[in-house]
């Protein structure tokens, strides 16, 4: 409080017709460091009050002309916040009480000792400081509320104007917030009503899967998925929202129109496919011709020729492998996959893959095993594509596992998904390489992998196919401790249908 007095100089007005009181007050209060002005009549006092913002008024009740009570009433109208201390004689205590009822803060009786005056004035000033403090707080609170309201409308405006679609749902999948871009992208005729579940009345298969995803995105991290709505291709990023206690509150989905990107991507894929086809036929012939010469069919080949031609054949072979992968990928990127989706027992797929890769595993003395639970639900999939997924994962497992290692396949139902795992006990993948292994043409390069051939397209193909099935692939690996690849495929919802 002391500090508050000193920030701005306290100014006090003394209104009394007695000079001795005015002088006494000036002297006593002046010693305290307060600025004191005086007036010898009520009229004079009121005039000064209008000119200067006094902090405190010391007012004599009994004056000729305008009485103290009258001045007090005017002051209440003029400066309602001004603190008034009444100066009164013994005989007029009653009128002092009356003055206090009329709004004076305190009184001091004449004659007074300097300390009495100081105590009364100080108390009044403290009260004033408290008042100011309270006012300040009130003002700040009002300003804060205004700012919050402003912030809210700012955020609302931003979300409203965003080119990306935004959708917020609660823990039961009910719509909490959305923006016009979302309504436009999803080609909805009316905005989805707040407080209702989203899947009502939507026919699109892809969209239904996506809505289910939104409801299921309660654990794990953000899920990204492509959604096709009419002629638009949208990229949906669905992020679960959790409270500090880890409780799921709902999800935030951001939709981006990637139709243009897809179109460009398709053109690129078409180009790659075209070039690859054109390259493959002649390369195939070259390798065939080399094979014929190397086999000695056209006459004897000496050792040096054999060696050089052998290397030439290895090179054409590697080139063909690359072209095949490029073609596969461009085919998948062009959307040729998932054309024959049918209910398939994944057991059949895995058994075929294991059968096919047994010789490869046997060549390295690797134990290739398949563990299946007795009953597994069927999953909608393109059989050929899914075989390709597991051929890739299993043959990778064999490639990157040293002799006498093991590659195991497990399948289980996990919540609303079927989880198929390919686990090897091979060289594993370092944490630097892990985030990039699904990138096109990325290959882990170290002393161990140098002799392993590959194109860096196997895993991107796996990822594409699994995503086209609305599934996800995840990998867990540590250098030297093997790798686990898990493929999650969504199970069909029960016939009853979810909420």
């Amino acid at each position, binding site marked *: 409080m002391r500090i508050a007095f000193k920030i701005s100089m306290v100014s006090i007005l003394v209104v009394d017709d007695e000079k001795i009181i005015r002088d006494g007050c000036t002297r006593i209060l002046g010693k305290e460091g307060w600025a004191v002005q005086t007036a010898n009549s009520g009229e004079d006092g009121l005039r000064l009050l209008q000119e200067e913002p006094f902090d405190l008024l010391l007012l004599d009740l009994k004056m000729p002309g305008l009485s103290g009570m009258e001045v007090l009433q005017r002051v209440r109208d003029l400066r309602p916040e001004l603190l008034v201390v009444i100066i009164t004689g013994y005989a007029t205590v009653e009128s002092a009480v009356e003055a206090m009822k009329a709004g004076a803060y305190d009184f001091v009786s004449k004659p007074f000792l300097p300390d009495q005056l100081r105590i009364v004035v100080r108390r009044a000033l403290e009260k004033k400081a408290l008042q100011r403090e309270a006012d300040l707080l009130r003002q700040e609170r009002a300003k804060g509320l205004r700012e919050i309201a402003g912030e809210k409308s700012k955020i609302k405006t931003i979300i409203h104007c965003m080119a990306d679609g935004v959708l917020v749902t609660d823990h039961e999948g009910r719509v909490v917030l959305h923006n016009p871009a979302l309504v436009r992208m999803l080609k909805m005729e009316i905005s989805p009503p707040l407080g209702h579940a989203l899947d009502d009345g939507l026919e699109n298969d892809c969209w239904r899967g996506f809505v289910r995803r939104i409801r299921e995105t309660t654990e794990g991290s953000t899920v990204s998925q492509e959604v096709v709505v009419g002629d638009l291709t949208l990229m949906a990023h669905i992020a679960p929202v959790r409270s500090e206690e880890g409780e799921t509150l709902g999800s935030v989905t951001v939709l981006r129109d990637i139709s243009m990107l897809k179109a460009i991507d398709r053109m690129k894929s078409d180009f790659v496919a075209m070039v690859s086809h054109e390259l493959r036929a002649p390369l*195939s012939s070259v390798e065939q011709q080399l094979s014929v010469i190397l086999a000695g069919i056209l006459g004897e080949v000496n050792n040096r020729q054999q060696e050089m031609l052998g290397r030439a054949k290895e090179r054409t072979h590697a080139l063909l492998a690359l072209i095949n*992968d490029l073609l596969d990928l461009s085919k998948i990127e062009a959307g040729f996959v998932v054309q024959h989706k049918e209910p398939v027992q994944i057991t059949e797929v895995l058994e075929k893959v294991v059968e096919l890769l047994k010789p490869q595993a046997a060549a390295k003395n690797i134990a290739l095993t398949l563990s299946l639970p007795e009953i597994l639900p069927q999953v909608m999939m393109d059989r050929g594509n899914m075989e390709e997924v597991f051929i890739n994962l299993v043959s990778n497992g064999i490639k990157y596992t040293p002799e006498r290692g093991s590659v195991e396949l497990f399948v289980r139902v996990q919540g609303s998904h079927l989880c198929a795992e390919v686990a090897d006990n091979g060289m594993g993948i370092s944490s630097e390489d892990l985030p990039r292994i699904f990138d096109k043409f990325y290959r882990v390069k170290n002393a161990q992998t140098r002799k392993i051939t590959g194109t860096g397209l196997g895993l991107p193909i796996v990822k594409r196919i699994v995503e086209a099935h609305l599934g996800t692939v995840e990998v867990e690996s540590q250098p030297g401790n093997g790798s686990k690849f898990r493929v999650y495929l969504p199970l069909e919802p029960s016939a009853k249908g979810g909420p």
Partner: protein
Amino acid sequence: MAAQVKVLLVDDDPDFVEATKAILETKPFEVIVAYDGKEGLEKARGEKPDVIILDVMMPPPDGYAVCSELKKDPKCRAIPILLLTAVMQALPHTLYTIDMGLRTEADDYIDKPVEPAELVRRVESLIAG
């Protein structure tokens, strides 16, 4: 093997045909060549080969079309067909063609380019089969 074995090779790439023919002629095979699907169908019906080696990647009618046509033909149905698929077995992650091979009624399939010894083995086993 009393009579000489007649092999029909259908492929639109002359270089590939020349090399493959050379492989087959290391054995007592008579090799007839067709350079597209249409010619392949004609020769299959006219020459009555003992085995047909049929490339899948040709301008229409492609190998799949020729294969299913021949398998529908009562007179040709019995002729074993070896499909030359475009994807290499050495890269086993592409089951695409294998699957296509199984979807068609071909008797066997082999990836192009082929190892000479392997081609001969496949053809011989088809004839013996």
